[in-house]
Every structure is written in structure tokens, then in C-alpha cells.
């Protein structure tokens, strides 16, 4: 099992360690709800070093990414980040990822920890099909660390140490040289809050975390910044309506069904873009046939129970869908879930029910996301 370069920090701060995607990671330090509320009201620091970081460099780097990513890459500017899906030939989702463009011939892709090896192998196999391409793919995950700092007070806190970072627009990044440490700081995240994600060398992250925490004693009750674990990360992303591979995204779920249409450039063409993307043909055929049969929706349940993955969604007695994720929403004080539902029953305002085993509470379809930062 991999240990994060931030491991010692987790132990010092009382992190409860669990295995996740082959890594030993903190699920929480305090109560998950406290960490969730702290992120929504002030700020939290998350270790996300388990996520895959894949460097793609060379003359044909962009062309390779155009082939692999559902979203158009050629129109990206340097120092820009773009959310994309990585599809299979059937139009299912191998993973979702963020592509960071360093330069015309250098990119960094951040993918899910659980999919890192699969995605590296997939990209390598695409390279293998094009012997003429000059491109090098290198998995940088174990040599680097990644930390997310998220919450409404985070940019203010950062403004005390940097003028440049708070001036970054959303989905942009900058590369800082702090003494001998090179760090990429992007205005991105997976919580629905403003904030940054930082990628830096594994051997520098311990010092960086100490410097960061000097801003605030995390043990103090009103500390502006406290560590938070994967438990809160999951409830935060769910409130923010963000899909997670293995739940809302999967190899057998159409990329068109998951509500991430903005990340699918169905009009990519070989002449203008250099490549079409893997899965594009299948998705176009699906669109011509009327589109996906199910759609991802948000549900608010009339119960205190939590809907769990794969629980049936019912219209009357008929199964019309299935739950992908659920939680007791700390911000809304309600039981919320995401689910795939047959398009005929997927309209906002429709009342369905969820089979929770001992109870079948009614569930109303609401707009996603459940929560939007002010």
C-alpha cells in the first residue's frame, strides 16, 4: 500500500487512516460533519496525493490528448486547466480528469487514484498505435504530492502570502518557484468552494504543510484552516453535484448521461483538431438514436435514512433507476442522493421513491448541484 508524502502530518493531527485506492489515507481527523461545515464556512486542507499525476510531453502531446480526452484540448491556453472525460470505444467513461497545459508541448493530467494505472496503460497503448509520434508519458504520482485548500476564506488567507495566486481566474494555474521548490497552484477543486490545489515535489510537502499551518493553529476551535479527510471530501462533492468514478461514472455508463455534456466535444474532427476522440463515434451514434435512456438526477429524500449506491429508484412499483451516491447533507439538513433515472421520469419536480430496504421514502428530483457557493 502506498503511503502519502503527507503521512506524518496525518498521524500528528489524529487522522483516522483507511485504505483507499491502494493508498493509506485519512478518512477524517474529527467528525466528518465538522470537517464538512468547516470547509463550507472557512477553510480546509485535504491531502489528495493519491490522485494520479501523469506528465505528457513532446511534439505530439496535444494530439495524443485530443485522441484520449472527450473535450477539445487544442483551444487551451498555457496555464489553463480543463475538466474532461476519458472514454472507452463504447462511449463509456474510463475516468474523468483535469488536464493542465504547461506549454504547447507539455501537459499534466490529474486523474482518479483508483484509475491511475489503467489510465497510464491506456495512454501508453494509444501512443503505441502511433509509432511516428514524438511523445513521452510519465507517471509522476509517486514523486509528487497534491494538496487541496478549499473554503470561502482560503483566497483571503493566501492573499497574505501571495498577490499572484488570488488574482488567478478559476481553472487557471501558476507555477511558483519557492526557493528550490517548484509548485503548480491551480484555482480548482472538488468541494464546490473557492480555493486552490497545489502539486509539489513529494520531498517538499512536509515543509510546505508546516508553513501553511503556521497561518493557523488547527487545534484552535476557530482556526480558519483545519485538515479534512476523504469522508468530508465525498459529502462536499456530492452536495456540489460533482460525479465520482465508480458511482456516477463508469465504463458501462454513457458519457452523455452523466450531465457533463460541456466536457464532451462531439464536433471534434480530424482535419481541424488533428484527431477525433476515442468513444466519439459511439456517442454520436447514441445521440442519433435519441440519446441515453437514463439521466443523472439529484434527489431529496423524505427520510433521515441515507440512500446507498444501487438502491432502486421507483415510480409506483416500477424500477426506473438506481442510486449512485447518497448522504445526509450537512448544509441542507436533508437526505440527498444522485441517481440514474429513465429519461421519461427524470424531470425536475418529479416525485419518485427510493427502496431503502425497511422503508420506501418518497424522493423529489431537484436541479443539480444541491449546493452552490455564494
Amino acid at each position, binding site marked *: 500500500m502506498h503511503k502519502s508524502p503527507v503521512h506524518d502530518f496525518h498521524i500528528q493531527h489524529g487522522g*483516522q487512516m483507511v485504505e483507499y485506492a491502494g493508498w493509506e489515507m485519512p478518512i*477524517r481527523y474529527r467528525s466528518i*460533519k465538522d470537517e464538512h461545515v468547516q470547509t463550507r464556512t472557512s477553510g480546509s486542507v485535504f491531502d489528495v496525493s493519491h490522485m494520479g499525476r501523469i506528465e505528457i510531453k513532446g511534439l505530439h502531446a496535444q494530439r495524443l490528448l485530443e485522441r484520449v480526452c472527450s473535450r477539445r484540448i487544442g483551444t487551451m491556453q498555457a496555464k489553463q486547466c480543463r475538466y474532461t472525460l476519458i472514454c472507452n470505444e463504447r462511449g463509456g467513461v474510463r475516468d474523468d480528469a483535469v488536464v493542465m497545459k504547461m506549454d504547447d508541448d507539455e501537459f499534466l493530467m490529474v486523474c482518479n487514484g483508483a484509475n491511475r494505472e489503467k489510465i497510464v496503460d491506456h495512454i501508453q497503448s494509444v501512443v503505441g498505435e502511433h509509432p511516428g509520434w514524438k511523445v513521452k508519458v510519465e507517471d509522476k504520482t509517486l514523486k509528487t504530492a497534491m494538496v487541496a485548500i478549499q473554503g470561502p476564506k482560503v483566497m483571503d488567507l493566501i492573499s497574505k502570502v501571495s498577490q499572484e495566486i488570488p488574482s488567478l481566474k478559476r481553472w487557471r494555474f501558476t507555477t511558483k518557484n519557492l526557493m528550490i521548490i517548484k509548485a503548480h497552484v491551480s484555482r480548482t477543486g472538488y468541494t464546490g468552494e473557492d480555493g486552490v490545489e497545489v502539486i509539489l515535489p513529494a520531498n517538499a510537502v512536509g515543509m510546505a504543510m508546516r508553513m501553511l499551518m503556521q497561518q493557523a493553529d488547527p487545534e484552535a476551535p476557530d482556526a480558519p484552516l483545519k485538515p479534512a479527510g476523504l*469522508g468530508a471530501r465525498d459529502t462536499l462533492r456530492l452536495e456540489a453535484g460533482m460525479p465520482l468514478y465508480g458511482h456516477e461514472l463508469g465504463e458501462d455508463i454513457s458519457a452523455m448521461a452523466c450531465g457533463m455534456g460541456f466536457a464532451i466535444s462531439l464536433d471534434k474532427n480530424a482535419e481541424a483538431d488533428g484527431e477525433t476522440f476515442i468513444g466519439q463515434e459511439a456517442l454520436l451514434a447514441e445521440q442519433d438514436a435519441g440519446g441515453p435512456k437514463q439521466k443523472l438526477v439529484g434527489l431529496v429524500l423524505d427520510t433521515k435514512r441515507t440512500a446507498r449506491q444501487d438502491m432502486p429508484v421507483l415510480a409506483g412499483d416500477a424500477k426506473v433507476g438506481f442510486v449512485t451516491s447518497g448522504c*445526509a447533507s450537512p448544509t441542507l439538513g436533508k437526505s440527498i442522493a444522485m441517481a440514474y433515472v429513465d429519461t421519461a421520469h427524470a424531470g425536475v419536480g418529479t416525485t419518485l421513491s427510493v427502496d431503502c430496504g*425497511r422503508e420506501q421514502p418518497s424522493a423529489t428530483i431537484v436541479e443539480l448541484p444541491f449546493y452552490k457557493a455564494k
Partner: protein
Amino acid sequence: MSTPDDRVYSESHEWFKVDGDVVTVGITSHAVDQLTDITFVEMREAGTEVSPGDALGEVESVKTTSDVYSAVAGTIAEVNADLDDNPGLINEDPYGAGWLVKIKATDTGGLESCVDAAKYDADIAG
């Protein structure tokens, strides 16, 4: 959190505290740690007859839903109503305010399969 030595513990991480013919049931600190935040509790109603091995109800957490089992025979006398609005009491005080049910016991022989605090601590450490 230290494991109180005034009660016994089951393999499925319930605790049972005997006071005359009333047995109070809860779940251990170790179980609560594994479950993470408790979000919902539903116990069977007062008046329900239970036998050793019967489910007393369910505890839901951020991570999962778990059944809680009885080790004694008897009738559920009281359900902890404070947990309806504040299931987090189980996280805060699993051996005190976070108790689940009180059973008016007719047969406590099932508690012989339980262990004392020292043995329980050794088992979870092992």
C-alpha cells in the same frame, strides 16, 4: 477512549450493561470509530420481544448501515429517544448518553458468550 469494565462486550461490538433485570445496550467506541459519523438510528419499538441474535435495530453512518444485535432474551423496555434528533450522541459518548435500548431481560444466559473489557480491548488490538 477507555473501555468501561462495568459491562460485557460481544463479538459484533455491542456492549451490555446489567442492572438487576434491565440490560442496557449500546455499541462500542471501536465500532463507532469504524462507522464514522452516525447519521440515523432506528431501533425496534418498546414492547418488542427479542431473543439472543435478534436484530434490535439499525445504525446508519456516513459510511454504512449496520444492524445491532441482542445477546439477551426479553422485551425492549425503552428506546433512547434523544438519538432521534441527535444521533451524534453515539459518537460523543458511546458508553453513556449514546446508549441505544434498555431490555427487560428474562434470560441473560447469552451474555456468557460476551467478553470483559480487557479481553475486548485485546481482541480489537489483535
